[in-house]
């Protein structure tokens, strides 16, 4: 028996969510009194792979053939499922990232395994019962889900489980399972990465603005505030619907659900659909000139005031704070 964790890399580097996934897998392995094995697909350097040992991985399976340098979910799923069988894994963990969402259900299907996406805590394992919490109804509820199958697949949301260094080391093994050529059914033509911005789903701080900003030309101060904080920028649905900001920034029930440490909402009234997307943020700050804005009811800190006055002051205050 083992716990297998698929570790996603971005251009050869493991991001924070990768270490959260291995730590989550390690904690489950401890519960099951077994070991955690990591699997990495793509081109990742030895010293980067070794880092996983420091978070509890006993072994790292390294799959790095040329045809796997870009993400092909069918082929990746075959590899992860084959490894899970080889290692007799009872639990398979993946990150609930965009790629993870395209991969995990395929892995689960290959293994006839029950899957819970976006686990928000460690599973409760008691004899044959295996229960895990996840959000439901777009963050308006928490569901406790029982998985009945022998093998379980879990995906873990970014920022949901803290990574924890254990100080161990791992052996890295080259792993080359046979993958049918029919699995290479999609071809990546182009990858466009915005290098100067922070990825919204993984961001620890999010600065978000709404219609209160009156127009797209006023986003300069939002971007500056985000820059000072090292934050990702986001927006409300009316803003992306109006084309002021891209859809990829829309946070809410029908957009991206975020759970950063700090969410700053500027000029957003706080419709129920927006709140659903941000309610699991650890700290919420609301800046709005309307004291009756519903967002204040779920905020931890609030300023009733005009965004065009408050935000520039906040930028100055933060610069001063960073300077100290």
């Amino acid at each position: 028996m083992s716990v297998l964790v698929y570790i996603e890399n971005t251009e050869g580097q493991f991001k924070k969510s990768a270490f959260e996934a291995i730590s989550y897998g390690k904690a489950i392995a401890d519960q099951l009194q077994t070991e955690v094995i990591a699997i990495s697909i793509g081109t990742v350097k030895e010293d980067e792979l070794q880092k996983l040992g420091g978070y509890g991985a006993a072994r790292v399976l390294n799959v790095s053939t040329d045809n796997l340098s870009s993400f092909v979910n069918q082929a990746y799923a075959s590899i992860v499922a084959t490894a899970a069988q080889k290692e007799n894994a009872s639990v398979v963990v993946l990150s609930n990232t965009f790629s993870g969402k395209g991969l995990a259900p395929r892995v689960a299907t290959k293994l006839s395994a029950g899957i819970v996406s976006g686990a928000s805590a460690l599973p409760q394992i008691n004899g044959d019962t295996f229960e895990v919490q996840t959000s439901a109804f777009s963050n308006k509820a928490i569901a406790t889900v029982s998985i009945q199958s022998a093998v379980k697949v879990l995906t873990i949301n970014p920022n949901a489980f803290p990574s924890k260094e254990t100080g161990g080391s791992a052996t890295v093994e080259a792993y080359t399972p046979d993958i049918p050529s029919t699995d290479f059914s999609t071809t990546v033509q182009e990858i466009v990465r915005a290098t100067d911005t922070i990825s919204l789903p993984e961001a620890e701080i999010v600065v978000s603005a709404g219609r209160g900003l009156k127009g797209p030309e006023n986003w300069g101060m939002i971007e500056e505030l985000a820059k000072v904080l090292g934050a990702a920028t986001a927006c409300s649905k009316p803003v992306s619907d109006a084309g002021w900001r891209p859809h990829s920034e829309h946070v809410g029930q029908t957009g991206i659900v975020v759970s950063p440490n700090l969410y700053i909402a500027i000029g957003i009234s706080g419709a129920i659909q927006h709140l659903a997307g941000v309610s699991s943020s650890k700290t919420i700050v609301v800046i709005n000139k309307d004291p009756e804005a519903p967002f204040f009811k779920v905020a931890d800190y609030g300023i009733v005031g005009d965004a065009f006055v408050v935000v520039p002051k906040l930028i100055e205050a933060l610069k001063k704070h960073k300077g100290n």
Partner: protein
Amino acid sequence: MKILVCISNVPDTTSKITFTNENTAFNTAGVQYIINPYDEIALSKAVDLAAAASGSVTTITVGDASTEPTIRKALAIGADNAVRVDATASDAWFVANQIAAYAKNNNFDLILTGRESIDYNSAQIAAMVGELLHIPSVSIAKGVQVTNGQASVEREIEGGKEVLTASLPIVIGTAEGVAEPKIPNMRGIMGARSKPLEVIAAVAVDPLTTVKSYATPPARGSVTLVNEDQVDELVNLLHNNAKVI
């Protein structure tokens, strides 16, 4: 081009979410149901693609007879015919198997579904159906083009986007940006009443997961208001009390 669109019947986005039977079941009392907003995007895209390629659009829904008003709305938006699998949608595995079983016998070129449903949010259906049918899938697409039997799909990745191509058939989970949701017009609404809605029996599949209970998220404490002339105090609170900066 034959297109299948998976339509989920979900509570309206403004619904108050409460539970009954000792928090083991969703309380449907007074809840309005709608087409899952992401499925509406999928359907709108399908209608456009079918119109451009003189194709057809079939919708499939797993649910009991109470889902039929939602299915009729999908027909009013522009689907040609609809299928309802007469069963309770117990988990994603069960639903994906129903969709795959129907698709297997009907040779669709394209299967579209929303990126996730707004009730269970698992975002599993597209990839599961793709795996069950042994065809490619993209789970969260921001843009879809189909030309000469090839799909070109723009998918979201952390901090950017990826463009990929694949031969049809393919399963695609659609997100915002793929199409503007269409609003049914009077002609569509009238026509929807006479469009075929076939009810079929479910294939036997045991669900692999069960929701044991629901809880509402813990209430947040009350807000600490800071005067707009004292933003330094807010910075201080975020640094020393919340410890987030």
